[in-house]
């Protein structure tokens, strides 16, 4: 039977993924990955490890552990900081998948003699005409293909996604029936190494803040900002623009960042024209199949949980594209990825550089 190393996070998804493989008769071992050195109330690796251990002990499989904190720091976290320094909104989870989980972790599992790895991602894979496809998870609320668009053929072939055709409540049910203590453990949200802590405080430890002013698109000052890196395009909360500015109606939204003058540009109302763009350019293009799709029916997400929207791609060169949407999209943020789909099939994506009309 195939020897599978399952990435165990201490959460319910990977726990159930492991249990499914055990039920199917695979030779399963758990691998706990530690990617961040700090152990605090925000990032409790010790607790997560114990949770994973309880799951593996219940399943009767070994749990080994491995540390990629150095690789994560160099290849994911430095990029994360660089992106914020450039005023962009990066997505470290995407890079973590391509650089750590499906590279370092995969290699480590192979060194251990594993035939394949498995993860608790809500995605599916399917072989079609000699190629593997990455499909959305069946639970539309949990689909994680957005984070995995950077995988190549070899990486997908080396991986199993046992819970891709399950829905979350079903996963929790299974976990409870199997006697996993973590059946009702809260889903992790946001960026793993930041956890529940204050984002500003976290970022301040690494990047000096440069406060500046908040202006409307016509140049009127309406407030002060703590540093452009703390804001994301389309952000509404936490701008601290008091009364007395604007028309007194409609919330303020971040429209743009002027890095040169260190100004945050805002506008009023969710319908503000400055919040919507039809076009974007993106780089670091990656196609899962290895080549550009020949599709009439292309849709794209501009962030995790965004609606798939009909679009057309123009390849500018091997790595750069421009994308035009049929309908304008809300707050396209540079640093996030644009990820392409045809139906349920995740085709690939690229990192957004610029949005415009």
């Amino acid at each position, binding site marked *: 039977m195939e*020897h599978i190393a399952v990435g165990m996070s201490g959460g319910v998804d990977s726990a159930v993924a492991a249990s499914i493989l055990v039920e199917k008769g695979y030779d399963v*071992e758990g691998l*706990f*990955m*530690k990617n961040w050195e700090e*152990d605090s109330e925000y990032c409790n*690796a*010790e607790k*997560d*490890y*114990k949770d994973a251990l309880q799951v593996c002990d219940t399943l009767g499989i*070994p749990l*080994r*552990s*491995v*540390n990629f*904190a150095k690789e994560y720091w160099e290849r994911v976290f430095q990029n994360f900081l660089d992106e914020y320094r450039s005023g962009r909104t990066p997505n470290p989870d995407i890079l973590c998948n391509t650089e750590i989980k499906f590279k370092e972790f995969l290699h*480590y599992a192979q*060194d*251990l*003699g594993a035939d394949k790895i498995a993860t608790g991602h809500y995605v599916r894979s399917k072989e079609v005409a000699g190629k593997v496809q990455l499909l959305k998870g069946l639970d539309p609320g949990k689909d994680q293909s957005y984070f995995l668009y950077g995988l190549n053929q070899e990486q997908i072939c080396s991986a199993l996604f046992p819970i891709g055709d399950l829905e979350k409540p079903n996963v929790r049910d299974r976990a409870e029936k199997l006697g996993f203590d973590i059946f009702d453990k809260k889903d992790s949200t946001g960026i793993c190494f930041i956890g529940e802590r204050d984002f500003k405080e976290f970022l301040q430890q690494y990047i000096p803040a440069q406060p500046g002013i908040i202006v409307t698109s016509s140049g009127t000052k309406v407030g002060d900002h703590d540093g452009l890196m703390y804001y994301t395009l389309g952000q509404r909360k936490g701008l601290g623009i008091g009364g007395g500015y604007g028309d007194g109606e409609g919330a303020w939204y971040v429209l743009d960042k002027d890095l040169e003058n260190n100004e945050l540009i805002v506008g009023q109302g969710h319908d503000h024209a400055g919040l919507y763009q039809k076009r974007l350019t993106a780089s670091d293009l990656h196609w899962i199949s290895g080549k550009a799709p020949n599709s009439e029916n292309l849709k794209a997400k501009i962030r995790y949980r965004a609606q798939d929207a009909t679009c057309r791609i123009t390849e500018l060169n091997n790595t750069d594209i421009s994308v035009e949407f049929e309908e304008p999209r809300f707050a396209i943020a540079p640093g996030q990825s644009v990820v392409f789909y045809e139906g349920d099939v995740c085709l690939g994506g690229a990192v957004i550089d610029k949005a415009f009309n």
Partner: protein
Amino acid sequence: MYYFDHSATTPVHSDVLDLMHSIQKDVYGNPSSVHSQGRKARLLIETARKQVAKAIGTIPNQIIFTSGGTEANNQVFWSLLNQNNIHVVSNTIEHPAVLKVLSEMETHGIDYDLVTVNKNGRISIADIESEIQENTGLISIMLANNEMGTIQPIKEIVALANENNILVHSDAVQCLGKMPLDVNDLGVDYLSLSAHKFYGPKGIGVLYFKNKDSLSSLMIGGGQEIGLRAGTENIASIAGMGLAAELVTNQLDHHINELASFEAHFKSELKTIFPNAIFNGDANNKLPGLVCVSFPGYRSDILMAKLDRANFAVSSGSACGSGNVKPSRVLSEMGVDDEINISTLRFSFGASNTSEQVDLLLSELKTILTD
């Protein structure tokens, strides 16, 4: 399962298991009771005390039973709080059941200094001498190390301590059954033992003391163990430990020879399979059957996982809890560099092994190392 991790713990001897089972079934009396059930229980405990005392060359009223080596160590150290001389000399390769206690006690006013070891893990008497202060009350040095088996020059340390009126404690949990152990010959004032290291049950141990007046109790209550360890006695475990101690000392020469021959065979064959193997420790002063080997170019966590998958149990000094492969502190103290350190495994042979098993281990290692 092929078990080569006897330094971590040993399987319980079958005679010991039988004895413990019959006691759990039939002897439910409280040793403090005067009736016949109580007398039966008391007799078992006092028999065990004689067996253990004999195994380490002392008399029954110089030992008490504890929950294990950790508790025995703790009792010696915490007793210092009532003494005048509260400076301790120990060394950097002790078990956490010594080092962490000392560092915790620092917050209670105890002062200590640690001597280092040479590349073989041996302590020098001169180093200890240079750490002795006016108020040094205790020297605590393990008899043999758990990671590479180096035996320390305890008799010389005792001689030095006697000249300076200092008491000596030795954590000897690795030693019973692997070397002759005579507390009077060693001359120590305190010695800690743990039953599960010599084919007895877990959760029971021994504290030997030369003089009871220097000790205080960690457990306050019913006055058991001559007032030094309150709490109703764990009769079956105590009796099991007594028998285990007797069995290993009766078989001592045979067991030492067997361990030495496993070790010699394993080392010479391993050198053929993997000529770069580095054997750590002091070849002239070490416990038999404990082999600490570095495999340059390999990672211990991978080797261990592969051996585990093939059903061989070994261990590594590099701690690997929640994803942290940290170099072994003991090997680092010996000057082993980090790369070699994290390539190190410990094989500890024991009475449950046969030479066929050692050959199976060698052939599995050959497969893994030539893969």
